[in-house]
Protein backbone atom coordinates (compact mmCIF):
# COMPACT_ATOMS: atom_id res chain seq x y z
CA UNK A 1 0.00 0.00 0.00
CA UNK A 2 1.36 3.39 -0.92
CA UNK A 3 1.66 6.24 1.49
CA UNK A 4 -1.26 7.99 -0.16
CA UNK A 5 -3.50 4.98 0.30
CA UNK A 6 -2.58 4.69 3.95
CA UNK A 7 -3.51 8.32 4.40
CA UNK A 8 -6.85 7.66 2.68
CA UNK A 9 -7.54 4.72 4.98
CA UNK A 10 -6.58 6.78 8.00
CA UNK A 11 -9.04 9.50 7.05
CA UNK A 12 -11.88 6.98 7.27
CA UNK A 13 -11.08 6.52 10.94
CA UNK A 14 -11.10 10.21 11.84
CA UNK A 15 -14.79 10.24 12.86
CA UNK A 16 -14.19 7.19 15.06
CA UNK A 17 -11.20 8.84 16.70
CA UNK A 18 -13.20 11.99 17.36
CA UNK A 19 -15.97 9.88 18.86
CA UNK A 20 -13.55 7.99 21.12
CA UNK A 21 -11.92 11.23 22.29
CA UNK A 22 -15.27 12.85 23.11
CA UNK A 23 -16.58 9.70 24.81
CA UNK A 24 -13.45 9.56 26.99
CA UNK A 25 -13.84 13.24 27.90
CA UNK A 26 -17.54 12.94 28.82
CA UNK A 27 -16.90 9.74 30.74
CA UNK A 28 -14.17 11.50 32.72
CA UNK A 29 -16.45 14.44 33.57
CA UNK A 30 -19.26 12.07 34.57
CA UNK A 31 -16.88 10.17 36.87
CA UNK A 32 -15.85 13.41 38.57
CA UNK A 33 -19.51 14.36 39.03
CA UNK A 34 -20.27 10.99 40.61
CA UNK A 35 -17.29 11.19 42.94
CA UNK A 36 -18.48 14.63 44.00
CA UNK A 37 -15.32 16.36 42.78
CA UNK A 38 -17.18 18.49 40.28
CA UNK A 39 -20.68 19.95 40.40
CA UNK A 40 -21.72 21.61 37.15
CA UNK A 41 -24.29 23.81 38.90
CA UNK A 42 -21.70 25.39 41.21
CA UNK A 43 -20.71 28.91 40.28
CA UNK A 44 -17.40 30.44 41.22
CA UNK A 45 -18.24 33.26 43.60
CA UNK A 46 -17.81 36.74 42.16
CA UNK A 47 -16.64 37.75 45.65
CA UNK A 48 -13.59 35.49 45.58
CA UNK A 49 -10.50 37.36 46.82
CA UNK A 50 -12.60 40.46 47.37
CA UNK A 51 -13.79 42.00 50.62
CA UNK A 52 -16.92 40.72 52.26
CA UNK A 53 -19.67 43.27 51.50
CA UNK A 54 -20.69 45.56 54.32
CA UNK A 55 -24.04 45.16 56.04
CA UNK A 56 -26.07 46.50 58.89
CA UNK A 57 -28.59 43.95 60.08
CA UNK A 58 -30.08 42.79 63.38
CA UNK A 59 -28.73 39.82 65.28
CA UNK A 60 -31.17 36.92 65.40
CA UNK A 61 -31.05 36.51 69.19
CA UNK A 62 -31.43 40.03 70.58
CA UNK A 63 -31.93 42.31 67.58
CA UNK A 64 -28.82 44.45 68.18
CA UNK A 65 -27.45 45.85 64.92
CA UNK A 66 -24.44 43.98 63.54
CA UNK A 67 -22.04 45.27 60.91
CA UNK A 68 -18.99 43.89 59.17
CA UNK A 69 -16.69 45.49 61.74
CA UNK A 70 -18.32 43.42 64.52
CA UNK A 71 -17.42 40.07 63.00
CA UNK A 72 -14.15 40.81 61.21
CA UNK A 73 -10.74 40.19 62.80
CA UNK A 74 -9.91 36.52 62.63
CA UNK A 75 -10.48 33.88 60.02
CA UNK A 76 -14.10 32.74 60.14
CA UNK A 77 -16.80 30.87 58.27
CA UNK A 78 -19.98 32.61 57.22
CA UNK A 79 -22.72 30.04 56.85
CA UNK A 80 -25.93 30.95 55.02
CA UNK A 81 -28.87 28.88 56.25
CA UNK A 82 -32.61 28.90 56.83
CA UNK A 83 -35.18 26.70 58.51
CA UNK A 84 -36.97 26.17 55.18
CA UNK A 85 -33.85 24.57 53.72
CA UNK A 86 -33.81 20.76 54.02
CA UNK A 87 -30.10 20.45 53.28
CA UNK A 88 -29.38 22.78 56.22
CA UNK A 89 -30.93 20.20 58.56
CA UNK A 90 -28.49 17.64 57.21
CA UNK A 91 -25.56 20.02 57.51
CA UNK A 92 -26.24 21.34 61.01
CA UNK A 93 -24.68 18.55 63.13
CA UNK A 94 -21.38 18.93 61.27
CA UNK A 95 -21.33 22.68 61.95
CA UNK A 96 -21.89 21.95 65.65
CA UNK A 97 -18.93 19.57 65.51
CA UNK A 98 -16.75 22.17 63.75
CA UNK A 99 -17.63 24.78 66.36
CA UNK A 100 -16.65 22.32 69.12
CA UNK A 101 -13.29 21.94 67.39
CA UNK A 102 -12.81 25.68 67.72
CA UNK A 103 -13.72 26.89 64.22
CA UNK A 104 -15.27 30.34 64.39
CA UNK A 105 -18.59 30.33 62.54
CA UNK A 106 -20.90 33.27 61.95
CA UNK A 107 -24.11 32.80 60.07
CA UNK A 108 -26.72 34.52 57.97
CA UNK A 109 -30.27 33.39 58.59
CA UNK A 110 -31.50 33.96 55.07
CA UNK A 111 -35.11 34.98 54.32
CA UNK A 112 -36.43 33.16 57.32
CA UNK A 113 -38.90 33.33 60.14
CA UNK A 114 -37.09 34.64 63.25
CA UNK A 115 -39.18 32.65 65.70
CA UNK A 116 -38.63 29.36 63.87
CA UNK A 117 -34.92 30.09 63.51
CA UNK A 118 -34.46 30.78 67.23
CA UNK A 119 -36.28 27.56 68.07
CA UNK A 120 -34.04 25.67 65.61
CA UNK A 121 -30.89 26.89 67.37
CA UNK A 122 -32.26 25.97 70.80
CA UNK A 123 -33.31 22.49 69.70
CA UNK A 124 -30.38 21.56 67.47
CA UNK A 125 -27.59 23.43 69.21
CA UNK A 126 -26.05 26.75 68.23
CA UNK A 127 -22.66 26.51 66.52
CA UNK A 128 -22.63 30.22 65.62
CA UNK A 129 -20.78 33.01 67.36
CA UNK A 130 -23.53 35.31 66.09
CA UNK A 131 -26.33 35.03 63.57
CA UNK A 132 -27.21 37.86 61.22
CA UNK A 133 -30.92 37.95 60.51
CA UNK A 134 -31.39 38.81 56.83
CA UNK A 135 -35.16 38.73 56.50
CA UNK A 136 -35.43 40.47 53.10
CA UNK A 137 -32.46 38.65 51.58
CA UNK A 138 -30.62 41.85 50.67
CA UNK A 139 -27.35 40.80 52.29
CA UNK A 140 -27.78 37.46 50.55
CA UNK A 141 -28.04 39.35 47.27
CA UNK A 142 -24.85 41.29 48.05
CA UNK A 143 -23.10 38.00 48.82
CA UNK A 144 -24.27 36.52 45.53
CA UNK A 145 -26.15 33.75 47.34
CA UNK A 146 -28.15 31.52 45.02
CA UNK A 147 -29.68 29.33 47.71
CA UNK A 148 -28.96 27.74 51.05
CA UNK A 149 -26.78 26.38 52.46
CA UNK A 150 -23.70 28.25 51.32
CA UNK A 151 -20.53 28.75 53.28
CA UNK A 152 -17.97 31.51 52.83
CA UNK A 153 -14.44 31.36 54.19
CA UNK A 154 -13.35 34.87 55.20
CA UNK A 155 -9.76 35.58 56.20
CA UNK A 156 -8.51 37.81 59.01
CA UNK A 157 -8.54 40.93 56.83
CA UNK A 158 -12.14 40.36 55.75
CA UNK A 159 -11.38 38.98 52.29
CA UNK A 160 -13.53 36.12 50.95
CA UNK A 161 -11.18 33.22 50.18
CA UNK A 162 -13.61 30.46 49.29
CA UNK A 163 -17.30 29.83 48.83
CA UNK A 164 -18.94 26.42 48.99
CA UNK A 165 -22.47 25.82 47.72
CA UNK A 166 -24.22 22.93 49.43
CA UNK A 167 -23.93 21.06 52.71
CA UNK A 168 -20.58 20.79 54.46
CA UNK A 169 -19.44 17.46 55.80
CA UNK A 170 -16.14 16.02 56.98
CA UNK A 171 -15.08 14.94 53.48
CA UNK A 172 -15.74 18.34 51.92
CA UNK A 173 -14.12 20.08 54.84
CA UNK A 174 -10.93 18.03 54.48
CA UNK A 175 -10.84 18.35 50.71
CA UNK A 176 -11.91 21.96 50.10
CA UNK A 177 -11.50 24.02 53.26
CA UNK A 178 -8.56 22.48 55.13
CA UNK A 179 -5.94 23.16 52.37
CA UNK A 180 -7.00 26.81 52.01
CA UNK A 181 -6.93 27.36 55.75
CA UNK A 182 -3.50 25.73 55.93
CA UNK A 183 -2.27 28.03 53.12
CA UNK A 184 -3.61 31.10 54.89
CA UNK A 185 -1.94 30.05 58.13
CA UNK A 186 1.31 29.56 56.21
CA UNK A 187 1.06 33.03 54.66
CA UNK A 188 0.36 34.59 58.02
CA UNK A 189 3.38 33.01 59.71
CA UNK A 190 5.80 34.18 57.01
Amino acid at each position, binding site marked *: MSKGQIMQRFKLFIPLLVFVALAAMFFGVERRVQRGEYTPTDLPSA*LLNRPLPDFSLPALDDGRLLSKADIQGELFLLNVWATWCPTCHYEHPFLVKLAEQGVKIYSVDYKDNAEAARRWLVEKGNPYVATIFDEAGNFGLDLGV*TGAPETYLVDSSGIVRFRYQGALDQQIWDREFAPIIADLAGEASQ
Partner: protein
Amino acid sequence: MKYLLLTSWLLFASFAAHGVIETYQFDTDLQRARYHHFIEELRCPKCQNQNLSGSDSAISQDLRRQIHRMIMDDKSDIEITQYMVARYGDFILYRPQFNAATAVLWLAPLGLLLLGILIWWRMAAMRARPKLTVEQTLSPAEAQRLKQLLSDDETVGKDGDDK
Protein backbone atom coordinates in the same frame (compact mmCIF):
# COMPACT_ATOMS: atom_id res chain seq x y z
CA MET B 1 -35.48 55.75 12.53
CA LYS B 2 -34.96 55.91 16.27
CA TYR B 3 -38.72 55.77 16.76
CA LEU B 4 -38.99 52.77 14.48
CA LEU B 5 -36.24 50.93 16.36
CA LEU B 6 -37.85 51.63 19.70
CA THR B 7 -41.24 50.51 18.45
CA SER B 8 -39.92 47.25 17.07
CA TRP B 9 -37.97 46.65 20.27
CA LEU B 10 -41.06 47.28 22.39
CA LEU B 11 -42.98 44.90 20.18
CA PHE B 12 -40.33 42.24 20.79
CA ALA B 13 -40.20 42.94 24.52
CA SER B 14 -43.95 42.63 24.86
CA PHE B 15 -43.77 38.95 23.91
CA ALA B 16 -41.54 38.37 26.91
CA ALA B 17 -44.19 39.70 29.25
CA HIS B 18 -45.94 36.33 29.25
CA GLY B 19 -42.91 34.66 30.91
CA VAL B 20 -43.80 35.31 34.53
CA ILE B 21 -46.99 36.19 36.32
CA GLU B 22 -45.88 39.08 38.47
CA THR B 23 -47.22 42.57 38.41
CA TYR B 24 -44.81 45.41 38.81
CA GLN B 25 -45.91 48.97 38.39
CA PHE B 26 -43.97 51.28 36.09
CA ASP B 27 -44.30 54.98 35.42
CA THR B 28 -43.34 54.82 31.77
CA ASP B 29 -43.35 52.30 28.96
CA LEU B 30 -39.60 52.68 28.64
CA GLN B 31 -39.13 51.50 32.24
CA ARG B 32 -41.34 48.52 31.52
CA ALA B 33 -39.41 47.75 28.34
CA ARG B 34 -36.09 47.98 30.17
CA TYR B 35 -37.36 45.68 32.91
CA HIS B 36 -38.44 43.06 30.40
CA HIS B 37 -35.22 43.43 28.49
CA PHE B 38 -33.23 42.74 31.66
CA ILE B 39 -35.21 39.70 32.77
CA GLU B 40 -34.82 38.25 29.28
CA GLU B 41 -31.08 38.94 29.06
CA LEU B 42 -30.03 37.89 32.57
CA ARG B 43 -29.61 34.26 33.51
CA CYS B 44 -31.01 32.74 36.67
CA PRO B 45 -27.87 31.98 38.78
CA LYS B 46 -29.46 28.87 40.28
CA CYS B 47 -30.43 27.37 36.93
CA GLN B 48 -28.29 25.98 34.17
CA ASN B 49 -30.01 27.61 31.24
CA GLN B 50 -33.02 29.74 32.08
CA ASN B 51 -33.37 33.46 32.07
CA LEU B 52 -34.87 35.37 34.96
CA SER B 53 -38.18 35.68 33.18
CA GLY B 54 -38.52 31.94 32.71
CA SER B 55 -37.47 30.87 36.18
CA ASP B 56 -39.66 30.45 39.21
CA SER B 57 -36.81 29.99 41.69
CA ALA B 58 -36.65 32.18 44.79
CA ILE B 59 -33.42 33.83 43.68
CA SER B 60 -34.95 34.80 40.33
CA GLN B 61 -37.89 36.40 42.11
CA ASP B 62 -35.47 38.38 44.28
CA LEU B 63 -33.44 39.48 41.29
CA ARG B 64 -36.53 40.54 39.36
CA ARG B 65 -37.63 42.59 42.36
CA GLN B 66 -34.15 44.11 42.57
CA ILE B 67 -34.16 45.02 38.87
CA HIS B 68 -37.56 46.64 39.25
CA ARG B 69 -36.33 48.59 42.28
CA MET B 70 -33.19 49.77 40.48
CA ILE B 71 -35.14 50.85 37.39
CA MET B 72 -37.56 52.81 39.54
CA ASP B 73 -34.55 54.39 41.30
CA ASP B 74 -33.41 55.66 37.88
CA LYS B 75 -30.31 53.52 37.77
CA SER B 76 -28.74 53.27 34.32
CA ASP B 77 -28.52 50.02 32.36
CA ILE B 78 -24.78 49.93 32.97
CA GLU B 79 -25.22 50.33 36.71
CA ILE B 80 -27.73 47.48 36.82
CA THR B 81 -25.47 45.22 34.75
CA GLN B 82 -22.47 46.04 36.93
CA TYR B 83 -24.50 45.37 40.07
CA MET B 84 -25.43 41.91 38.79
CA VAL B 85 -21.95 40.99 37.51
CA ALA B 86 -20.35 42.11 40.80
CA ARG B 87 -22.52 39.59 42.64
CA TYR B 88 -23.00 36.70 40.24
CA GLY B 89 -20.12 37.03 37.80
CA ASP B 90 -20.19 36.80 34.01
CA PHE B 91 -22.43 33.74 34.31
CA ILE B 92 -25.47 35.95 34.79
CA LEU B 93 -25.09 37.61 31.40
CA TYR B 94 -26.45 35.71 28.43
CA ARG B 95 -24.25 37.99 26.32
CA PRO B 96 -21.03 37.96 28.34
CA GLN B 97 -18.65 40.89 28.10
CA PHE B 98 -15.56 40.27 26.01
CA ASN B 99 -12.58 39.63 28.30
CA ALA B 100 -9.81 37.08 28.76
CA ALA B 101 -12.13 34.58 30.45
CA THR B 102 -14.87 34.81 27.81
CA ALA B 103 -12.68 35.20 24.70
CA VAL B 104 -13.08 31.49 23.91
CA LEU B 105 -16.86 31.83 23.89
CA TRP B 106 -16.75 34.70 21.45
CA LEU B 107 -13.95 33.49 19.18
CA ALA B 108 -14.59 29.73 19.02
CA PRO B 109 -17.43 30.00 16.45
CA LEU B 110 -15.23 32.17 14.24
CA GLY B 111 -12.35 29.70 14.61
CA LEU B 112 -14.61 26.78 13.70
CA LEU B 113 -15.89 28.67 10.66
CA LEU B 114 -12.33 29.32 9.50
CA LEU B 115 -11.44 25.67 10.07
CA GLY B 116 -14.47 24.63 8.01
CA ILE B 117 -13.52 26.96 5.17
CA LEU B 118 -9.96 25.66 5.25
CA ILE B 119 -11.07 22.01 5.06
CA TRP B 120 -13.57 22.78 2.30
CA TRP B 121 -10.91 24.68 0.36
CA ARG B 122 -8.40 21.83 0.71
CA MET B 123 -10.95 19.24 -0.41
CA ALA B 124 -12.01 21.36 -3.37
CA ALA B 125 -8.36 21.78 -4.41
CA MET B 126 -7.71 18.04 -4.13
CA ARG B 127 -10.73 17.15 -6.20
CA ALA B 128 -9.61 19.51 -8.96
CA ARG B 129 -5.96 18.37 -9.07
CA PRO B 130 -5.94 14.69 -10.30
CA LYS B 131 -7.71 15.52 -13.62
CA LEU B 132 -5.07 18.05 -14.54
CA THR B 133 -2.13 15.81 -13.70
CA VAL B 134 -3.43 12.85 -15.72
CA GLU B 135 -4.05 14.93 -18.79
CA GLN B 136 -0.88 16.88 -18.69
CA THR B 137 1.81 14.42 -17.66
CA LEU B 138 1.26 11.47 -20.00
CA SER B 139 3.99 11.31 -22.60
CA PRO B 140 3.18 9.71 -26.01
CA ALA B 141 4.99 6.54 -24.95
CA GLU B 142 2.98 6.31 -21.76
CA ALA B 143 -0.25 6.90 -23.66
CA GLN B 144 0.64 4.05 -25.97
CA ARG B 145 1.36 1.76 -23.02
CA LEU B 146 -1.89 2.71 -21.31
CA LYS B 147 -3.85 1.93 -24.43
CA GLN B 148 -2.17 -1.45 -24.66
CA LEU B 149 -2.91 -2.28 -21.04
CA LEU B 150 -6.51 -1.32 -21.40
CA SER B 151 -7.03 -3.45 -24.44
CA ASP B 152 -5.31 -6.40 -22.70
CA ASP B 153 -7.64 -6.00 -19.83
CA GLU B 154 -10.64 -6.05 -22.12
CA THR B 155 -9.71 -9.40 -23.66
CA VAL B 156 -9.08 -10.92 -20.24
CA GLY B 157 -12.40 -9.60 -19.06
CA LYS B 158 -14.19 -11.22 -22.01
CA ASP B 159 -12.56 -14.57 -21.33
CA GLY B 160 -13.58 -14.28 -17.72
CA ASP B 161 -17.19 -13.59 -18.65
CA ASP B 162 -17.44 -16.66 -20.78
CA LYS B 163 -16.79 -19.02 -17.89
